[in-house]
């Protein structure tokens, strides 16, 4: 009898035990409890993300600093406890700005390195080669480092998100500035292309605005191909703009090609006002290319004086800004060999946004949860000057920029307020009234 009671008690206890185990398991997968390997690339102690970057090749000047800068920010976060006690492992591979290499390296990241997400993959032509594949594999494709409108296509690319303002938004605001400040002048285009979304989207935005203004738009844009052979043809393109009498050149170009265009114009004794897209106008990068002899001879850094451009982050040269001092401090500790310029700022600010997204994705993030987190991510507490456009129907990053002019000291100063708009031609440009944020004291986004 006693033994019988014991046996049945044991059975009851066992049943309770099993039920409790099930309950714990059920709870663990949803909220509190231990860290789990909740998704590919996510273990209890780490998150692995990957990227393709132009570490060498025609776009390397300046852009090769972006991934090491982002990695420096991740190292800083890792050294301060990581995100939910997970360290971020950032693997970035060189594609030389060549779509063929991007395809191969992305396969490596996905199939061999088993990354949780692609983060900050750089370049319009390069990323277009892999965006279908990344989406078909249902891998979050966060914050493509390119302003192509193409990343904002939720039905076609549900996993892909832009980050920087797209080139049409940027172009519209640049165009408005040209209308206001260069009335009656002849405006010509120098752009990456043709049929490169970087150039065409930007030209589209500027043209939309210039139609409302009092400037003469030269009908034929001059294009360059981002290769070594393309660099040799820039002189001809600039000479054509000179012959057509362009007084303002709107340039949608990567830094090396902006520098070649500036040098070509100077060589022709031609002094138009250059209005350069943010991606091709970082003063420190341009000065480095011109004065460092990368174009064959050492050229004066003064060639960048008077460039009109824009920014969606605080200016890298503004050391009084708390974001700049935070990121510059992190750079000095975790990547002391990097210079301090707009590219490094870009990499760190983008990494900051990724940490915001990863925190918002929950204690045990999944690929679906981080995509949802970004779609709900109306973060205004980051380093950006303008708000994000993210929603379930919109994968657009920053919605606006602030105009800036490069002065004789080689540093940019802002001109006017932050302006926001959408990439729809008919939508108006408005002044953004939000207050600039300050970073948390820890330097890591709070929950």
């Amino acid at each position, binding site marked *: 009898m006693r033994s019988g009671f014991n046996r049945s008690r044991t059975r009851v206890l066992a049943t309770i035990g099993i039920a409790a185990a099930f309950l714990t398991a059920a709870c663990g997968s949803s909220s509190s409890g231990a860290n789990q390997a909740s998704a590919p690339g996510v273990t209890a102690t780490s998150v692995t993300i990957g990227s393709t970057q132009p570490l060498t090749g025609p776009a390397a000047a300046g852009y090769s600093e972006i991934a090491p800068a982002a990695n420096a920010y991740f190292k800083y976060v890792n050294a301060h406890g990581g995100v939910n006690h997970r360290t971020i492992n950032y693997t*970035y591979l060189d594609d030389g700005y060549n779509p*063929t290499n991007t395809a*191969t390296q992305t396969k490596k990241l996905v199939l061999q390195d088993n990354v949780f997400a692609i983060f900050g993959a750089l370049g319009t032509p390069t990323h277009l080669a892999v965006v279908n594949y990344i989406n078909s594999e249902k891998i979050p494709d966060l914050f493509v480092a390119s302003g192509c409108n193409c990343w904002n296509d939720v039905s076609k690319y549900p996993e892909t998100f832009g980050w920087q303002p797209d080139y049409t938004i940027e172009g519209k605001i640049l165009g408005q500035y040209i209308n206001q400040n260069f009335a009656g002048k002849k405006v010509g285009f120098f752009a990456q292309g043709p049929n490169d979304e970087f150039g065409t989207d930007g030209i589209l935005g500027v043209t939309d605005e210039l139609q409302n203004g009092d400037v003469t738009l030269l009908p034929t844009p001059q294009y360059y191909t*981002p290769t*070594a*052979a393309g660099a040799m043809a820039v002189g001809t393109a600039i000479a054509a703009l000179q012959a057509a009498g362009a007084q303002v050149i709107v340039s949608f170009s990567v830094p090396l090609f902006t520098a070649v265009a500036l040098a070509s114009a100077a060589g022709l004794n031609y002094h138009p006002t250059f209005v350069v897209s943010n991606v091709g106008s970082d003063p420190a990068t341009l000065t480095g290319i011109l004065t460092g002899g990368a174009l064959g001879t050492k050229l004066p850094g003064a060639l960048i004086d008077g460039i009109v451009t824009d920014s969606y982050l605080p200016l890298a040269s503004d050391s009084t800004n708390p974001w700049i001092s935070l990121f510059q401090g992190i750079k000095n500790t975790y990547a002391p060999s990097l210079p301090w310029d707009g590219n490094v700022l870009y990499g760190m600010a983008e990494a900051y946004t990724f940490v915001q997204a990863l925190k918002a994705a929950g204690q045990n993030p999944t690929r679906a949860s981080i995509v949802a987190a970004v779609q709900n991510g109306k973060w205004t507490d980051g380093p950006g000057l303008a708000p994000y456009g993210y929603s379930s129907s919109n994968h657009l990053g920053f919605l606006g920029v602030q105009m800036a002019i490069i002065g004789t000291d080689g540093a940019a100063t802002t001109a006017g307020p932050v302006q926001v708009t959408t990439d729809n031609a008919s939508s108006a440009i408005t002044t953004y009234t939000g207050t600039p944020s300050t970073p948390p004291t820890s330097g890591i986004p709070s929950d």
Partner: protein
Amino acid sequence: MRSLLRRSTLLRHGLFFLALAAILGALTWFVFDPFTEYNVAGVAIYAISAAGLTVLTGLNGQVSLGHGALMMIGAYTTSVLLQWHPDLPLILMLFASIATTGVAGAIIGIAGARLRGPYLAGATLSLAVALPQVPTHFASLFGGNQGISVPTPVPPDALAAVTPQQWFTWICLAAAVITFFLLANLVRSATGRRLQMVRDNEVAARLAGVDVARTQVLAFVISAICAGLAGSLFAYWITLTSPTGFTLTLSLSLLTVVVIGGLGSLTGAVLGSFIIVYLPVWTGGFASSANLPSNVANNVPLAIYGIVLIAAILVFPRGIAGGVASISRAVATTFRSRRQTSTLPASPAPPAQ
């Protein structure tokens, strides 16, 4: 049986390549993971193109710095046709690319047959530089800088268990095995000997009744056909055909494959392709993992590539295939002489020369 094999090159090669195809097919099915499948397809594609180039340069003595441009013709043939009719079967695309590239090869070959050494290299070099500009200027047809997306080939319904990656790897391996089978026979044929004769001494070849110019054009066409086939597969492999994928770098990489592998050696073309595909895979991670200043770390993979090239050429001046052959010959000689000394201890030393 043995004597039959020795007599018939066709039978010997046929059996060898059938066995090779079976082994590679089985490896793809049972052993390889998806990333290996992807890379093996890449090795096969580079090997097809390099095999054509090694016949042209190694066997016939014509240097081409423009084989990337020929691959580009093949890739664009496939991509433009697929842009119009996405449902066209892959096999048709391969033959269409072979046809267009073959015609292009004949035209270049006719021009090239008048040129020698550095002049031929210069002419083909200009092709490699100029051709990538064409899609930019005829953007509506060729998709401009942005390029043309290429759909991934899907396996037929009967092979539902096969992944698209495995299916494509099989296609590439099959194409490579067939190409190598045909080229291996060509090398051993009368045509192959004519190619070598023209390379070694044009005057002697002409005296022996060989039409030098025709032989040279033929070599160019054969080699262009290989490049076209590889280019078509390349378009499917990358899934995007854009001018930036066919820069001078590609042409030089192909030449690198041929030289590292061993000029004129078909085995060498495979070994060289293996290196060119796998080296970036092995070294790519250094940039982000190496604890070095980023301006150094970013260039580490390129530096390793350069060092491997220099080392390979210093250690194996006749290419890896040549190196392997001379090592195995040395081993065989040592082995044979040791056996001879053991069985015939009393044999007199050969007279000093």
